[in-house]
């Protein structure tokens, strides 16, 4: 009842100063709108793609760099070891049975020949990986399953394909058991991955950046050497005696190109594994490798993402700027609100004189501010939605044969989910309180007589 009365008074007050009210609402809307845009962009980059087990999964990095420090001063973190391993180090670590699961992998590519009318051959991204990839990263499978460890070593001609490729080749039907022709060789489909696009793509930040689409095809690791599959990611040859040459040279010398991950369930086994890794590099030193002091990392997902600065300075600067702007908007509204309340002080004085308590006056004014805050918040949400749309248009221009995943990725990176909407409502309430509490208190405190006198 009281609330209804207060709301009515608030509306009357808005009618008395329409320009001032519109100014306040637009200031709050602009502040909340820009804060929501930047926070949404930041939130999308700061995702926890595998939060349920991110402290059980560990990336492994070994410092196999030569003693030459040239160009390291230009790196942001010269102290970090290279983020990929050589073939031989990956294969040596893979033999350890301390982890529950181990994965070694890299990105490559093949040409798919659909072999039927209408569809021309086309390129597909391939992740050459080991069997544990699917259980370890909880990859959701629409049909079938992954392969077993033996299928990696003497590689079996089996593949797991992505949903998009399955749609393209088999119209989305269960394709387990069907074959796909890759560069003239037949591979049997044993599984189809459902929509799966971790953001950031924590398990491989090097091949296409931290935000990239998943590969179309997953293939047993043994095919890497059997078919000499070149890396579509980065190859980093880190010692002077690395030999650039044919595929065999690259995989037999100090050229880093393999991502390596392990799943370790307990702290004790993690300690054991770290010791094992350090022992391995110390041991290799006898062969003239690992010339630098031991500097290996076995780090969990959040640490790995932080080491690679996945969020980036741009996102951070944008959020800070938008929050500062929101602060300016709050100050601004505070000032205008104060002016407005004091301007209407004679009326308030009259109400006080007629028996309204100080508490009632404060509450009535607070409600008025909250209405301004919430309206500003709603308009701000609409502005944020338009801003994000504009950003999507600006940053993603669809190409003629882009995979639908690319569009999905661009949308996901500027998507305002329900949590963000709840958050926006929260901010607008806080904004209202911050901007309104002082003016309301100030006007409530004033002695009624002072205002009445002026009449």
């Amino acid at each position, binding site marked *: 009842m009281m609330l209804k009365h207060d709301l009515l008074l608030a509306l009357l007050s808005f009618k008395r100063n329409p320009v*001032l009210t519109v*100014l306040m609402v*637009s*200031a709050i809307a*602009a*502040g909340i709108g*820009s804060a929501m*845009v*930047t926070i949404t962009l930041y939130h999308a980059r700061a995702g926890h793609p595998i939060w349920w087990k991110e402290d059980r999964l560990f990336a492994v990095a070994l410092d196999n760099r030569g003693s030459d420090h*040239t*160009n390291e001063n*230009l790196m*942001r973190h010269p102290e970090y070891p290279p983020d990929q391993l050589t073939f031989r180090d990956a294969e040596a670590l893979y033999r350890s049975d301390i982890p529950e699961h181990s994965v070694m992998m890299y990105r490559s590519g*093949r*040409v798919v*020949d659909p072999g039927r009318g209408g569809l*021309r*051959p086309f*390129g597909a991204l391939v992740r050459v990986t080991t069997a544990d990839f699917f259980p370890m990263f909880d990859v959701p499978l629409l049909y079938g399953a992954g392969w077993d460890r033996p299928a990696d070593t003497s590689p079996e001609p089996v593949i797991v394909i992505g949903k998009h490729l399955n749609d393209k080749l088999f119209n989305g039907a269960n394709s387990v058991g069907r074959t796909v022709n890759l560069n*003239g060789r037949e591979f049997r489909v044993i599984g189809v991955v459902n929509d799966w696009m971790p953001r950031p793509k924590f398990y491989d930040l090097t091949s296409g*950046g931290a935000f990239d689409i998943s590969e179309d095809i997953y293939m047993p690791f043994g095919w890497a050497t059997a078919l*000499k599959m*070149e890396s579509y990611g980065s190859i980093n*040859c880190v010692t*002077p005696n*690395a*030999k*650039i*040459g*044919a*595929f065999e*040279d*690259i995989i037999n010398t100090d050229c880093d190109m393999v991502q390596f991950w392990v799943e370790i369930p307990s702290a004790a086994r993690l300690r054991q594994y770290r010791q094992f890794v350090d022992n391995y590099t110390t041991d290799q030193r006898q062969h003239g490798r690992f010339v630098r002091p031991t500097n290996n990392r076995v780090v969990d997902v959040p640490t790995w993402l932080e080491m690679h600065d996945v969020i980036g300075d*741009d996102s951070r*600067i*944008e959020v800070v*700027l938008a929050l*500062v*702007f929101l*602060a*300016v*908007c709050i*100050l*601004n509204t*505070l*000032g*205008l609100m*104060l*002016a*407005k309340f*004091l*301007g209407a002080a004679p009326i308030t004085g009259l109400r006080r004189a007629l028996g309204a308590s100080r508490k009632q006056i404060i509450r009535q004014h607070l409600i008025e501010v909250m209405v301004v805050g919430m309206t500003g918040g709603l308009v701000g949400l609409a502005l944020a939605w338009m801003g994000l749309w504009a*950003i999507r248009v*600006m*940053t*993603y*221009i669809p*190409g003629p*044969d882009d995979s639908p995943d690319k569009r999905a990725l661009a949308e996901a990176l500027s998507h305002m989910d329900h949590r963000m909407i709840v958050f926006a409502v929260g901010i607008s309430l806080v904004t209202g309180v911050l901007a309104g509490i*002082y003016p309301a208190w100030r006007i409530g405190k004033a002695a009624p007589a002072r205002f009445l006198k002026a009449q």
Partner: protein
Amino acid sequence: MEVRHLLSALWRSRTGPCLIAVQIAITLAVLVNVTYLIALRVDTYSQPTGMDIDNVFWIHSQSFTSDYDQKNAVASDLQWLNSLPGVTAAAAATSPPQSHWGFNMPFSASPDPNAPKENARIFAMTARGLDALGAKLTAGRAYSAESVGSPAADIGAAVAQWAPEVVITQALAERLFPKGNALGKTLYMGLVNKSAKIVGIIGTLQAVPIYGPFARFSNQVVVAPMMPPGPTTIYLVRTKPGRQSEVMARVEQEFADRVPGRYIARTEPLARTSSDARNGMRASSIILGAVTLLVLCVSAIGICGLAVFNVTTRTRQIGTRRAIGAQRWHILRYFLVENWLVTTGGVVVGCILALTAGVIISHTTQAPRLPLYYLVGGVLLVWTLGLLSVLVPARRAAEISPAVATRTV
């Protein structure tokens, strides 16, 4: 002038002016620092690419049969492309320019393995490659057609094969040969144990986008003569001005079927590749710029709003002052000076804030320190903005008739 009275009047109702001063301080800090950040970005992404960006497009051809004859395919494709009307030059390369595909390797000016090395991007092309990109030599000549060689087994082997002569960019030349005599010198590549003669220098060639993890390689480039080994071959086609779409249309119709055993993954104008690579940077500049503009607007609204309020509440006093002999411009001056005092208070705090923020930003982002003339410009702008926002309310105050004073008493 009555500054003392003015100050005491300000002090009596200090909350409003203080809020405005704080807003102005923050506005100044934001304005100065963000403008500088945007300027740094714009400066970076508007650097010339060193290529004839509007008239080059590229074709990504991918072979997939084991009996694909790379050497003859490239030769025949290039002959066809070069014969098309409207084409200035065409060449084959291992990667498109302005992309992240490709190799970075350490080079040095001496065969000594301990000599200082400089990492550079390798951009490998067939004969007429510089022509096909529209890259301009500042000294020396282009590499010869004979130095190109025949296709190796794979890209690694192709790099190991290494050509006898190369062209490098000015930036790399300056780092490896600080005395400025790179032309004719030998460039050593320890990793493959080869060397090559530097036969030409080009001003700049952004093989890698200027933004992203390899930005520093965008101007440190070694242009190496190389026959792309396949399966990936990038054809670079430079057309006469205004004829790109016509040539691209023809290529899209006829090129794929010229040689069996390959497919065309993409045909794209270089302008688009380059613009895509700058998208993130541009979007970020626009976001920062838009928010800064909003900050300015909101501050102006705040100043204006407070002034309107002051004028309304002081109507009677203004009338009285006018009645006892104050001229219109006295009233105008009063409001302008009052506002100027508040703004200046904000500006003083804002300068400290701006400099502090500048130090923090340059420390965390490794950007160069904020130059002081940005601060000077910011102060002038904020002063102007303050005066302009108070002008309308102040003029309204000056219009108040002296009669108002008598009416309400």
